[in-house]
């Protein structure tokens, strides 16, 4: 055999050298036998998942020239995630692609090296949307790059986008829409139309996965067969636990106490769940998904208004049920979605509802949605003779709610604690309440059983034990810090820790006050500052305390401290961010741009982590 002119696909130069050495020494018969041998090895490797190694090698050597043949194109799956759903789907997609022999790399947008984008061949993007049309927080830098002027032309790229969103929000699936639009602008070719998934993405996402995988599969391969194995791969979540979002663990409530003292303007609860026997594990920073049931009074009000019977038979997720049960456990019956407005506009023929349709009416629609719950619309725009199935068609599936876990398994094995603010407000003269928080407040007494699962949060993690941490949180945002301190106490961590906590009133709202006092006394917590916004003393917020201690804050950062921010996304997060930039500028003499870059570098190094909602 002669030495070949160019390297085969996916081979490192070292491998190629060895193959060339081998090639020149082989007799033709030997070479023929070896070709059959490697074909057999390859097939076995695919079956056992060994193909992963090839994929990894491929990604590790992107500078190698790639063969132009269609079947050798590389596939990158990029995901942007807030709660982990996109990550789970990306892993499912990767598994399905690999089954088809497609060379696949999976990457979080948070970690993706954007300079590689121009070399990508096939790109599948799965991303959620945060708040009103924003990217997931960890993906902000990727979006900035892609939508900025530095983004390269991508004429050779093929792509498809799966967008996750929540139709309660006005800018539904906007993150995915932005990527889809921008890749097209950059000259890339759309493989498949974008699919937008609502919170019940478990239905729509697998279909998109099957369809893009079929499109990418090598031509000579058989069409994608829906084998039992591939179905499993498509529906399996990334987590290896037996209990997950689709199959939550029935956890027993151990304790449920009100943390806020008498006279508080709010109600904050501490709820403890037993995870015993579940096999569920979590790390400090993770969240617990809680599957609530709707307030029976609200369900009754909907049924009464429509004169529908609770025992009317319905089908939910291909399973027979009753309307009462469906409204209690399967559908949102409080907050209104644009979809429901459309649906009810059609059913009722109400001009007032019809007038809220269309993108140009978004603002009025949003205001209307804030001012009405489902039952208000049903009452105000009556529909007679409605059948149960027609009602359910307009409703959004009931979603689990995520709460930061406020405990550590190292301190309380087999338990998960939550710190929950009960949401109560008046609407149209009627008392209303948050679905999950009021469920936990009113129907989760000790010994009650609540379905829960673990939602990993890899973007909110403790650093090594010897690193300093600066924890900034307001209200229930203090929850993960309780977990952090429990973990650090149990581990005997040596790194310093500084908690800056804010709430309304010292007397009633100093959440976990005696625990912090104990941690300070034992020197597990090095320092604590508090800011109360409704006491007689000048009202203060956490960012005020940071500014007052600017020198110390900057010194901690310079000494390698990791910063955490947890709490309100609309006010706390930007206010703290601005305070940190100002502090860095003032203490280091940097200008505003350089200070922002300092903070951005911290974020890239995972030293500035946020969990805001």
């Amino acid at each position, binding site marked *: 055999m002669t030495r070949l002119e160019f390297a085969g696909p996916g081979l490192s130069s070292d491998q190629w050298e060895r193959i060339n050495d081998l090639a020149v020494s082989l007799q033709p018969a030997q070479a023929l036998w070896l070709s059959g041998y490697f074909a057999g090895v390859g097939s076995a490797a695919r079956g056992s998942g060994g193909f992963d190694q090839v994929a990894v090698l491929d990604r590790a050597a992107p500078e190698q020239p790639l063969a132009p043949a269609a079947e050798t194109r590389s596939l990158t799956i990029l995901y942007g995630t807030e709660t982990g759903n996109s990550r789970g789907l990306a892993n499912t997609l990767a598994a399905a692609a690999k089954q088809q022999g497609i060379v696949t790399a999976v990457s979080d947008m948070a970690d993706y090296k954007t300079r590689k984008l121009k070399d990508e061949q096939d790109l599948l993007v799965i991303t959620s949307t945060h708040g009103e049309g924003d990217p997931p927080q960890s993906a902000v830098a990727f979006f900035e790059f892609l939508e900025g002027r530095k983004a390269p032309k991508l004429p050779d790229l093929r792509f498809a986008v799966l967008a996750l969103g929540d139709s309660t929000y006005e800018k539904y699936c906007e993150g995915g829409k932005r990527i889809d639009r921008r890749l097209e602008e950059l000259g890339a070719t759309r493989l498949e139309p974008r699919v937008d998934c609502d919170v019940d993405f478990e239905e729509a996402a697998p279909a998109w996965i099957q369809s893009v995988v079929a499109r990418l599969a090598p031509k000579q391969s058989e069409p994608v067969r829906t084998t039992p194995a591939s179905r499993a791969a498509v529906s399996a979540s990334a987590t290896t636990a037996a209990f997950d979002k689709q199959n939550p663990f029935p956890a027993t409530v151990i304790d449920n*106490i*009100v*943390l*806020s*003292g*008498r006279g508080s303007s709010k109600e904050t609860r*501490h709820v403890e769940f037993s995870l015993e026997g579940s096999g569920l594990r979590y790390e400090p920073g993770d969240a617990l998904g809680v599957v609530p049931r709707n307030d029976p009074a609200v369900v009754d009000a909907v049924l009464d208004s429509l004169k529908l019977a609770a025992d009317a038979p319905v089908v939910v997720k291909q399973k027979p049920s009753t309307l009462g049960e469906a409204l209690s456990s399967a559908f949102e019956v409080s907050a209104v979605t644009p979809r429901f407005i459309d649906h009810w506009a059609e059913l009722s023929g109400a001009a007032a509802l019809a007038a809220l349709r269309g993108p140009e009416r978004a603002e009025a629609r949003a205001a209307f949605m804030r001012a009405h719950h489902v039952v208000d619309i049903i009452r105000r725009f009556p529909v007679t003779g409605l059948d149960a199935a027609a009602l359910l068609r307009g409703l959004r599936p009931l979603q689990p709610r995520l709460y930061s876990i406020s405990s550590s398994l190292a301190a309380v094995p087999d338990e998960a604690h939550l710190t929950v603010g009960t949401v109560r407000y008046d609407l149209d003269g009627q008392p209303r309440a948050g679905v999950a928080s009021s469920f936990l407040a009113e129907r989760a007494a000790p010994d009650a059983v609540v379905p829960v699962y673990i939602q990993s949060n890899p973007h909110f993690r403790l650093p090594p034990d010897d690193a300093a941490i600066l924890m900034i949180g307001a209200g229930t945002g203090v929850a993960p810090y309780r977990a952090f301190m429990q973990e650090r106490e149990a581990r005997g961590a040596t790194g310093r820790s500084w908690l800056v906590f804010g709430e309304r009133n*010292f*007397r*009633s709202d*100093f*959440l*976990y*006050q*005696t*625990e*912090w*006092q104990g941690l*300070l006394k034992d020197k597990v917590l090095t320092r*604590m*500052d*508090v800011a109360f916004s409704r*006491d*007689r*003393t000048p009202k203060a917020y956490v960012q005020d305390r940071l500014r007052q201690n600017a020198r110390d804050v900057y010194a901690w950062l310079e000494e390698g401290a990791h910063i955490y921010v947890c709490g309100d996304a609309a006010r706390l997060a930007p206010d703290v961010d601005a305070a940190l930039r100002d502090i860095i500028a003032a203490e280091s003499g940097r200008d505003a741009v350089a200070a922002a870059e300092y903070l951005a570098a911290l974020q890239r190094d995972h030293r500035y982590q946020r969990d805001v909602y």
Partner: protein
Amino acid sequence: MTNTTTLDRSRDLSQPLDKLGPDETLKANSRQLRGTINDSLFDPITGAVTASDTKLMKFHGIYQQDDRDIRDERRRQKLEAAFSFMARVRLPGGVLSASQWLKLDALARDYAGETLRLTTRQTFQFHRVLKTDLRALMQGLRDVLLDTRAACGDDTRGVMASINPHLSKVHAEVYALAKQASDHAIPKTGAYDEIWYQQEAGEIKEPEEPFYGRTYMPRKFKIGFVIPPSNDIDVYAQDLGFIAIVARGKLKGFNVAIGGGMGRTDQAPETYPRLADVIGFIPVAQLIATIDAVMSVQRDYGDRVNRLHARFKYTIDDKGLDWIKAEIERRLGQPFAAARPFELTSNGDPLGWVEGDDGRHHYTMFIENGRVINTEQLRLMDGLRAIAQVHKGTFRVTPNQSLTIAEIAPQDRLAIAKLLDDYGLAGLNVGSALRLNSMACVALPTCGLAMAESERYLPALLSKIEPILDTHGLREEPITIRMTGCPNGCARPYIAEIALTGRAPGKYNLYFGGGFHGQRLNKMYLENVGEPAILDALEKVLGHYARARRPGEHFGDFAIRAGYVAAVAEGRHFND
């Protein structure tokens, strides 16, 4: 006279600190009451101050307390106890101006739960003051020339003086002396101004406390002035009492009484209430020197090992009254003159209108348990504020926690009377004579010492006793009844004709036999009993009294004559 070579000095100031109780070391190392109070006030993680600072702050007139009603609830909520502070004003003789009243009213509304508490030592207490509001409160008091110095702590407490409105001229003179005595005897440390007024620490003149030294007194020391025939201040309950001797309307001097004190501890028979002994007479000019001599004897010889045994009364009984008297005379440089005759007739208040010998009018109103507050039924606090806004004279807090609107010119009387009517305050002096002679301490929920209810319970209990009085025709019979939530005796229970001291929630010791004008201790009749047993006992003994009393015989005297309790001649036999 005891030979000084055999005098036991093992427990007093002559010993090194390590031989004395831990509070002596705390005081000695406090840098004259500064401690770490500034740091404690600043600490934002807790509404409390450190344990040692709580003790030092008493010298500044401030007690750390917490709302005991919700202590357990908050513990479960992972919240520290609802700490707040009681601040006690230093108000010699209980006298204050109308503008001072208005300031106290405003401070109470701003910082102290919209209520003021009149006390058994003729002053005001602010309750439920937050740590973060303490400085504002103290500075507000300073604006009207008031402070809280030495209102608690091991020093001379608020100096009492009879409110006697009949003898207005003598009252004015005695009040001025009481104020002088208080100003003289309080600590001189600059700590108070530095901490509460945030004044720069100036150069400290050594010694900062020429009288008190580093360790102050072994225990609290109470001084009071009485103007016979009223014994409203309970002069026999003072560590150092001065009994005004008046001849033809002129103040001649004082009989000196030493060694009174109420505090005792249940199950500790070495503790007991004791009435003061009259040891002689001094002219007015000797007053300050006498205070120094008496206090210095207690300072030097008082027990500094066991705080339960540290009051002057125990020093006197341990060393012997004769020896103590001689030591005082030695320090005075001359013997006391013989005590002058005097007569005390009652320790109650002269309720209603009284015209003084200077032609001015005085109105004394019964304020149940001293609680000044607005309720749905009675806007007491608003009414008194309205009066203070027009009143040109003074107010006097009585030793029975009631209030005198004093020094009203004849032409202003109608206006005051109208305001009393307008706010429904004219009806406060109506009730059984027992109720009008009742007194209770604060106790639950704020007092850390309380074992049972007092202020919140006595009015209801009286409502159950009044039918018994009616049955036996005793509604108008003045009988003193006092209740405290613990055995310490803030409402001076051990000299009441009927007394109840708390042992546990709902349980009290019942005492009978105190002297009507405070001249005799009472004695325990029933121990650790609840309301049914108390009412049964009162029904039996009051009924017997109504049937068998002699003309003019007071209930306390009767209880002894009829054999319900034995007479207590001396405090040390109280527990016999």
